């Protein structure tokens, strides 16, 4: 028991800085944003996908019918698979759903709950899962630029839509910076020895503390870099673009609704109609 426990602790403490490294995170973020530009979902018109998303983000909240919700859930499950979403995002999704409702389910079972308590929780979980997967499909299946163009078309201010694509441009840089600061701590810091169980716990606490302390230099280094970026944006006409209608027109001219978009909408509508039909029959 003691042995197994220390083994898990060992794994956990090693993992925080080593396995779950910044390199891995950075890679996952980039993969998520740009690594799947050749999927069916990524090729769809962003406007169509946003309309599709509005339906799946709103409707599930107002319906309590299990077969219908299940139908919607299966559909977004398929689209998520089609979008080839990065593993980390799916992991965060699973963790999120569990922390929202899943643990309630476990707790209610422990305190003598039965099927009657399970059902409402199952419905809530289904709703959360459906909405989350729809979001994942749209926001990580599309590359940030197409997404921001789609938002621009619906009248979202230029600044916001630029921020989305710029954030993705900055993220890898930010993470690299973060990694460098962490490495500085690793080189010069003096972590507690972690041979015993207590040592391992102390080591874990130490690592979390270092991560927190890294934010100060991270922010300052990023701010320093951003100074150049802000000047460069000014020189490259960013302000001009925000006030010029002509620029918006040029940007949006690349959006085009194609045959595949109609197919996507048609299949979705058909599927939802079918689920509704099944739910009334049962």
């Amino acid at each position, binding site marked *: 028991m003691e042995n197994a426990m220390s083994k898990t602790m060992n794994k956990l403490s090693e993992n925080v800085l*080593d396995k779950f490294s910044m*390199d891995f995170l950075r*890679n996952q973020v*980039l*993969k998520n*944003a*740009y*690594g799947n530009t050749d999927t069916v979902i990524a090729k769809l018109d962003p406007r169509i996908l946003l309309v599709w998303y509005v339906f799946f983000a709103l409707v599930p909240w107002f319906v309590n019918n299990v077969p219908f919700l299940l139908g919607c859930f299966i559909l977004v499950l398929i689209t998520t698979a089609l979008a080839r979403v990065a593993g980390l995002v799916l992991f965060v999704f699973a963790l999120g759903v569990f922390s929202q409702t899943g643990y309630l389910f476990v707790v209610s079972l422990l305190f003598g709950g039965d099927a009657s308590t399970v059902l409402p929780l199952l419905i809530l979980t289904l709703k959360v899962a459906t909405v989350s997967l729809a979001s994942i499909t749209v926001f990580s299946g599309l590359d*940030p*630029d197409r997404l921001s163009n789609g938002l621009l078309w619906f009248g979202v201010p230029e600044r916001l839509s630029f921020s989305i*694509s*710029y954030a*993705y*441009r900055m993220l*890898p*840089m930010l993470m690299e*910076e973060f990694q*460098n*600061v962490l*490495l*500085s*701590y*690793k*080189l*010069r*810091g*003096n*972590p507690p*020895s972690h041979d015993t169980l207590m040592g391992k716990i102390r080591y874990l606490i130490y690592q979390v503390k270092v991560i927190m*302390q*890294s934010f*100060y*230099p991270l922010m*300052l*280094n990023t701010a*320093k*870099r*951003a100074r*150049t*970026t802000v*000047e*460069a*944006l*000014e*020189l*490259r*006409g*960013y*302000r*001009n*673009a925000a006030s*010029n209608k*002509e*620029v918006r027109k*040029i*940007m949006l001219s690349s959006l085009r609704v194609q045959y595949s978009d109609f197919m996507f909408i048609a299949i979705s509508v058909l599927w939802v109609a079918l689920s509704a039909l099944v739910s009334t029959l049962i």
Partner: protein
Amino acid sequence: MNTVEIEDLSFTYPGASQPTLLNVTFTIEKGDFLAIVGNNGCGKSTLCKVINGLIPHFIVGDMQGNVRVCDMDTRTSDVGTLAQKVGYVYQDFENQIVRPTVLDDASYACLNFAFKDYEERGRRALALCGLEGLDDEYVWQLSGGQTHLLALAGAVSLQPDVIILDEPIAQLDPKHADAIYEVLKDLNENHGKTIVVIEHHTEYIADYCKHVLLLKDGTVRWKLPAHEALRRVEELEASDIFPPQVTQAAHRFKVTGSLAHVETLPTTVGEGKAAFASLKRDTHGNDANQMTDTPAVDGEASRGNTSDAASSSAAPAEPESESDAPDALASSAAPEDASNMPSVPAVEFNDVTLGYRSVKGDRHVVLDHFDLSINEGEKIALIGSNGAGKSTIMKLMVGLLKPAAGTVSLFGSPIGNKKAEEISRQISLVYQNPEEMFIKDSIENDISFAMRVRDVPQWEEKTAQLLERFRLTDLRNRDGRLMSGGQMRRASLAIGIALNPSILLLDEPTANLDIATRREIMAVLDDMKDIIKTAVIATHDMQLVCQWAERIIVLCGGKVVADGTREEVFGDKRLAQLVGIRPPEIFTMARALDDDARCFTVDEFVSGFKEA
């Protein structure tokens, strides 16, 4: 016709007690290729930001005088309009790239200024900068040199009249540096652009620039035709700028009364051949310049188009030297070292493999079955082009990276088995970018951090000593990031040696530095030699390599392609072609005069040659 006219310009940053620029007056003609030189912190970057209108529109401060660019007063025109006339490439160019893919970024400015043909303009700019075919590449997958070219393409896409570059080649290997300057030359000669560079690589100024402007303490000392400017050896050195080595050597001869017939000092190897024609190698007194035991190889391809040394010194190569493959060189050096060194190497790489995964999932191998051993007491230079794996090797040595296969050992035991605490007492790494070493809010805390967490006795005193030694006592409460380049570098060194490591690794310690700061860093290394027994420097600075290193390791594509003394490495012509390394100018000069000469420093050249 003048593109830029500056009249009686003074500028003071808000809160500063001294003006950064004072009564600056000069003009830049259309079609000029101007180099602005001066010591660290003399106001070069500020001056360039005045030309593109960032000052006074974006950076506020007290500005006086008139600046006219392309017949527009910068004070009354807006930054956007000026930006279409003046392109700017920053020293930290990677931060001016704001779009994820190459074509996107190159055409971004054109899109913002509502040019319908923005993609076409972007493509044209990419072609001009030699980046065709990379349109859809992601920007973080580009090499350092390519990223720089992309920043340039972004500026060129708007078809400005003037292009300003702040230290365009500071962190590039010679091949990439040449590529940048060739692009600039093409833009200047064939597309009528006026080019302004802030530069302290005077060899490049001699080869490419038409005029030089010397800035000192915020005032213009003079603006002269490039070759005339480079001959002002004493004035340049007083401003912490190295003139070309050929010019330095000629100047030294003149001071001692030799070369009386030479009226103007040579600035390139080509000019040097004429000026030094009367010199003969002193084969008696000086063994250092003789290499009778190695077969003669023909002269290294000299850099740049304007110097004609390459063609004139190209004696036919002897076949024997061609067979002297780099691999053979590497293996012959190793056993020799082993015989007179302690048996346990300080650092040993044993069959190390390391790679990373790129966004699209394919694996990229950095090191493949890599072997290397470094003995205690060696002064090693690690050279090779950008991306050859220099930084990776250094990170492996301090345990920041873990090899996928194989082992890295420090003093005989694998790094993986050691505690971080033990590693940090044995070896220390000073990063290429000093900012990354500042993790506390003042440099005093940064320097003391490692000692404090280890409860090193008397850490307060030791910190005070380090601050004193690096002349940082007055700055001790400042945040490292807010200091000048030279001060940052000194602080990062102080942090690096705080724990008295016996092995010190320096990644590009002299990039972006003027001579004064460079000399200082070399002096520190010399000073510390009792404590720091072994030092490894990764660098592109061949003058530094030749002055300092005893053993040179050449990397190419994650492999050691040569390992030996400077004579062995720079004497091998095939090697130079293979990895694009280039000996210092003075070495090429000496061999242009006498094919058997091996001069690595100006001192060796001056003592090795005598007037016949």
